[in-house]
């Protein structure tokens, strides 16, 4: 918001003896209609004392504190404790709470990968994601390309993530369109028999819990 009588920063000569390549344009997102709407509503709510700036900051910090390591702990426990795995598949929210992770308001469905089935999660309509367990979704998960292609050509998308699924294995796509949220339970990698639960958790990437990758092989 530059006042009309304020001098513009480029109102002085830039000549200083040598040329520069043109500056790369900033990649800051454009202030879209809905972003402007969010800023306006937030500022009004704060101005009217409905919420405080500190409330907003705390909510953002709580959101940022959730991360895929929580989901990885859940997976590692399921790999090492068959009774826990059975509870996780039967009642995911309760089983996740057992580990001190707050799964959030949505009901989770845990999808088990097996030698015969590979599960892949997408939200074709928007960006529904198990944020309570995995934190914020990666940008590609929200992209139109992923949302449209994961459902139409999942095997090609998987291949682009380096995940080759043979035709003898069923690919099951799960379109998260409504009130459920999905967590993939990847297969425990071969050669991981001697690892501890916390070492196992390190093999569980975010991508493997969305289903675009397998769990890492132990090094």
């Amino acid at each position, binding site marked *: 918001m530059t006042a009309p009588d304020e001098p513009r920063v480029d109102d002085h000569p830039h000549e200083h003896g040598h040329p520069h390549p043109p500056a790369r344009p900033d990649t800051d997102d454009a202030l879209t209609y809905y972003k402007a709407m969010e800023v306006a509503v937030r500022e009004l709510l704060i101005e009217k004392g409905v919420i405080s700036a500190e409330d907003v900051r705390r909510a953002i910090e709580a959101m940022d504190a959730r991360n895929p390591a929580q989901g990885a702990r859940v997976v590692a426990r399921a790999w090492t404790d068959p009774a826990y795995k059975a509870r996780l598949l039967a009642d995911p929210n309760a089983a996740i709470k057992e580990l001190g992770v707050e799964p959030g308001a949505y009901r989770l469905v845990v999808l088990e990968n097996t030698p015969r089935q590979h599960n892949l999660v997408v939200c074709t309509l928007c960006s529904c994601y198990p944020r309570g367990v995995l934190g914020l979704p990666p940008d590609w998960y929200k992209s139109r390309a992923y949302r449209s292609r994961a*459902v*139409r050509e*999942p095997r090609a998308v998987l291949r682009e993530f380096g995940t080759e699924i043979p035709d*003898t294995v069923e*690919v099951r796509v799960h*379109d998260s369109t409504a009130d459920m949220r999905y967590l993939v339970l990847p297969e425990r990698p071969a050669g991981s028999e001697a690892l501890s639960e916390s070492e196992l958790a390190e093999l569980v990437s975010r991508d493997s819990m969305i289903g675009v990758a397998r769990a890492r092989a132990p090094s």
Partner: protein
Amino acid sequence: MTTSEAAPRFRPGDPVRVRFADPPGHIRTPWYIRGRAGVVERLCGSFGNPEELAYNRPGTPRQPLYRVRFRQAQIWPDYRGAGTDTVDIEIYQHWLEPGDAR
């Protein structure tokens, strides 16, 4: 006040067909699945109707929500992959009709 909730019409394993309709407003049934035939995988419970909630209406009667399984090869004529590949989608009951018996 009683909570108004529609009674579930379908059970896991039932063949169903997604209604082919194009109403205005906030719709949670993806376009690519309208008019398609699938099988109920599970009943997820009953939820406020998002087509109503989106406009700050109460969302009642609450709608049973199902996960319906479709064969990829039947949805995409040019689908490349195993014939057994599937896609599961959450569909609210008011978008489902009984499917053809198989």
